[in-house]
């Protein structure tokens, strides 16, 4: 008797239906978990194998060690390569950010004749495959009898980073509220003061983001660098060459450190932004 009443008052949903409803509701969450797992598998693998007591070739797990982390320069040439990549990255980022920001202000702030062809000139390097950019620049250097090496690589990196800087900074300029600048002008600030005290601080996060993007593009670039660096070794080139014989675990240490460093910078930036927003 009593069970019948219960059945009548609380209709039980069959298990299958409940399961499918749960899936329907959480499908995207489950998908997200799979997606992020997929993204992070090789990162986790690289990190795990940075602790491998591997000797020369880091293919098979042989045991846990901290030696690689204590001695990241242990593999021949690796820190030389890393140093070159960092130097090239800083120089390329500095030049590309300055040139790109100037272009972004011109296109984002002014109406002028040739504006749409300027946009095209910025778009074209992004629509050209890296191998064409690298090969064509090398041909030019060869014509002028300039040997590939450090400065040709810096020039190549500035060239392909400019467009990304322009696009990033331009997006930030477009999202500015023009009333803030009008207010500054109303308060008798002249053009230069308005730019320095209002516009520039507002655009600064966009410029910082563009610089971070430029550095990571430059630091990670292999194809264009391979064409224009000659005998100079950068970190990606080191990894590519070493791959044939087996990569030393120190490369995993450096790759993982870059990952954590970049993550820390991005999170710090987010925290600063959030505090400012309050």
């Amino acid at each position, binding site marked *: 008797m009593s069970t019948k009443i219960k059945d009548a008052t609380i209709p039980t949903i069959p298990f299958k239906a409940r399961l499918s409803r749960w899936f329907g509701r959480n499908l995207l969450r489950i998908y997200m978990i799979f997606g992020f797992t*997929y993204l992070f598998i090789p990162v986790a693998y690289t990190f795990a194998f940075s602790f491998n007591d591997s000797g020369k070739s880091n293919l098979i797990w042989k045991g846990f060690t901290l030696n690689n982390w204590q001695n990241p320069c242990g593999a021949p040439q690796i820190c030389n390569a890393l140093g070159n990549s960092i130097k090239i990255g800083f120089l390329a980022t500095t030049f590309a950010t300055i040139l790109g920001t100037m272009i972004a202000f011109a296109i984002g702030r002014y109406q*002028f004749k040739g504006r749409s062809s300027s946009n095209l000139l910025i778009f074209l390097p992004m629509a050209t495959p890296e191998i064409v950019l690298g090969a064509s620049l090398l041909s030019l250097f060869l014509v002028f009898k300039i040997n590939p090496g450090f400065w040709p690589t810096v020039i190549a990196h500035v060239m392909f980073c400019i467009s990304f800087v322009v696009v990033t900074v331009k997006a930030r300029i477009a999202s500015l509220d023009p009333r803030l600048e009008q207010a500054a002008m109303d308060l008798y600030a002249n053009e230069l003061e308005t730019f320095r005290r209002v516009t520039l601080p507002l655009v600064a996060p966009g410029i910082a983001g563009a610089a971070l993007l430029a550095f990571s593009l430059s630091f990670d670039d292999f194809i264009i660098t391979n064409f224009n660096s000659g005998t100079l070794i950068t970190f990606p080139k080191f990894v590519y060459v070493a791959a044939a014989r087996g990569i030393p675990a120190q490369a995993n240490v450096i790759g993982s450190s870059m990952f954590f460093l970049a993550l820390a910078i991005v999170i710090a930036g987010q925290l600063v932004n959030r505090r400012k927003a309050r």
Partner: protein
Amino acid sequence: MSITVPKVRVPYLLLFPGFAFLFTFFILPIVNLAQTSTQTPIAGGDTGQYEQSFAFSNYIHAFLDNREQFARSFIYATLATVFALAIAYPLAYAIAFKSGKFKNILLVLVVAPFFTSFLLRTIAWKQILGEEGFLVPTLRNLHLLGQQTTITSTSVAVVAGMTYNFLPFMTLPLYASLERIDPRTIEASGDLYANGITTFRRVTVPLSMPGVVAGTLLTFIPAAGDYVNASILGSPNTKMIGNVIESRYFKIVDYPTAAALSFTLMAAILILVTLYIRKAGTEELV
């Protein structure tokens, strides 16, 4: 738009240094590349010495000798773009609409793998999927994979590697355009008795088209010219046009053919991109 009344020259002064740089190190090299592509070897000269002779036949030879690699590059790049779109769209959608206060963190996590050198990640995939990894022997023991079948050194591995490596380029523009959608348009669609699927198909997808266009271009273009995935994860049977250009330059020192191939690749991509943008109907790209 502009609130100041600037001197007419200001934008040009701002543009000048950057454009002078791009002109010298982007436009000039491309022009020079076009010139190189029609050169022929100097009779009796050393290897690597060429003279201008307007030999447009270079293009015909370059294309006919490598049409297989050209076809492969465009097929692989198209497949990688389609797979990346299929993986990235739900991901970007979930981050934009279903992640609440974790939005920023999740967005950082999409870009984060990007900071470990992409070569290291590609090589990690090679080792995970390779003969010495644990995955292939396990799958073989479970009879899910034939005893002779391998994953690396196949076209599947190359396309998978490309899909993986260009995923952030697809996800970020998609997220940017999805995030910009006014939630009221989606509510309005529901108020007009559209169900979830109809709303998604008729409202969300059309509004996210700029992101789809930008994402597919940012994936397809580098993928078509890529040779790193093919040389790490592939075999001689998966060579792409990038591999051919690279070896023409460095191993054979055949600059004219390399230049003709580069130029053909660039032209093919530009034509495809133009057609695609026309078809997708978005002019506002950058």
